Every structure is written in C-alpha cells, then in structure tokens.
C-alpha cells in the first residue's frame, strides 16, 4: 500500500491517500527514484519541496517554449530536444506552464531565444542542485542541468 515518490528529500514512503504533494508527484518519479537508489525518508523537506515545484514549473515553461518554437519553425529538428525536456518535466511530476511569449518569427532569432532559455534553465537547475538538501534531488537537478547544457549545444548546432 505504499508508493515511493521523489519529493524533495528523495523517497517518501506514503500510504494510500497520503500527502498531497506525494499525490502530485507520482508517476515517473518512481523511475528516477529507483534509478538513483534512494534512502526512504518519512517526511519531505519543505525547502526541497519548494525547489522541486519551482523546477517543475520552470521546466513546463521551457517545454512550452520548445514546442512553440517547433510549431513555428517546423524546419528545425527540435523533436529530440522536446522529448528530453518532456522526460525531465515528467520526472519532476509535471506542472502547468505559465503563459509564454510567441517565439521570434525569424528562425535564427528563434534558435537563439531557445538556446538562451535552455541556458537559463541550466543555470537555475544548477543553483537548485547546490541548494537542495536531499541527495536524490541534488542528483536529479544536477543531472537535469547537465542535460540542459547538452540541449544548448544541440540547439546552437541547428543554426
């Protein structure tokens, strides 16, 4: 009757109908939790929960930016980058993206804008990884940051 989820401090073991946060953060987090080999802890750290939610919202916004750029510029091979950001968002439990501006009509400017957004996400997740308390969350965020760095390089290569 327990479900392991990644919420802030790593794995929280909660019963059915447990923490609201846990309910929000189910799904593919289990895969990440299994992958990093977490130590179960009974309570999420509030600071880590804030970091996780902020990262999820930011990643949702990033995905919206990738998808809108791909829709506006279908000639750009953005499917792999979109798939990666989608996987990252899923691992964080998903989130609703805030409203985001339309991508630039000029393709080179759109590539630049997307690379800039990925690089900002890289910096932010790095900061979060340095601030997080749970080893599991530190690893997920640090790894995401490195994944964003690869994304920046891949997107810049599309120019």
């Amino acid at each position: 009757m327990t479900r392991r989820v990644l919420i802030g401090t790593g794995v929280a073991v909660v019963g059915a109908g447990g923490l609201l946060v846990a309910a929000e953060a189910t799904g593919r987090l289990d895969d990440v939790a299994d992958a990093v080999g977490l130590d179960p802890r009974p309570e999420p750290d509030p600071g880590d929960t804030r970091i996780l939610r902020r990262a999820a919202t930011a990643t949702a916004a990033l995905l919206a930016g990738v998808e809108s750029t791909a829709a506006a510029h279908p000639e750009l091979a953005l499917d792999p980058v979109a798939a990666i950001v989608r996987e990252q968002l899923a691992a964080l439990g998903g989130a609703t993206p805030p409203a985001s501006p339309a991508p630039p009509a000029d393709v080179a400017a759109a590539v630049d804008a997307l690379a800039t957004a990925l690089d900002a996400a890289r910096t932010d997740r790095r900061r979060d990884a340095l601030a997080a308390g749970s080893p599991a969350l530190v690893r997920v965020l640090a790894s995401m940051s490195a994944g964003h760095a690869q994304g920046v390089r891949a997107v810049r290569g599309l120019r």
Partner: protein
Amino acid sequence: MTPTEALQAWLALEHEAVWLYPVVGARLDALRDRATTSFEAHRDVRDDLVVRLRTRGVEPVSAALGYAVGPLTTADEARAASRSLEDRVCAAVLTLAGTAEGDVRELAVTALRTSALAAQVWGAAPTAFPGLP
C-alpha cells in the same frame, strides 16, 4: 559512499582518461586535436583531485598500467571508447554531487556539465539525465 570514496572513484576514471586520450591521439590523426584537448582537461582534473585527496589526509588511488577500453583501431571505436569514459565520469561525479556539500558539491556539478558536454563532443546524443543510470 562517502565523499572521499566518491572522489577516489572519480580519480580512478581521470587516470583512465589520462591514459586513453594520448593513445587515441597517437593512433588516429583525425582525432588528435580533440584527444589532445581532452587529455589536457583530464590531466588538470586528475592533478586537482590528487591534491584534494592528499589535503584530506588520504592517499590517492594510483593509475593502472593499462585499461580495457576495447579496440581503438578505427575512429568510430575511439569515439565509442571516449564516450564510454565520459559517461562513466558523468556517473561518478553525479554520485559525488549527491554525497557532498558546499565546494565539493559545486565541483562535482561543474564537472558533470563538463563531462556531459565532452560526451557530446565525442558523438553522444543529448540525454535528459546525464550520469543517471
């Protein structure tokens, strides 16, 4: 795993890199410049890790005489061996990032970015979570 153990595991891979890249550069002209750049970067990291471990009062792990990295006859083989090495460095520094705090965590997070980009330079496709299994 303690931070010291994680640093030792990382250093062992840096020893391997310092062995691998000169072999790649010597055997494959087309990869010489890239291999030289990689060698120099890993040599500097190796030296830094040796100092860090000694500062902790720990004897750093030694290099092996050679490493089983598979065949290095063709450029594709050399790229594959290089990607494999950088991927293993990603995993090692990510382990360290989770066990360490402060400056050492920052060192590990920075090194993860470096090794993830290095893997990409050697032909790896971008991934969502470099270093995670």
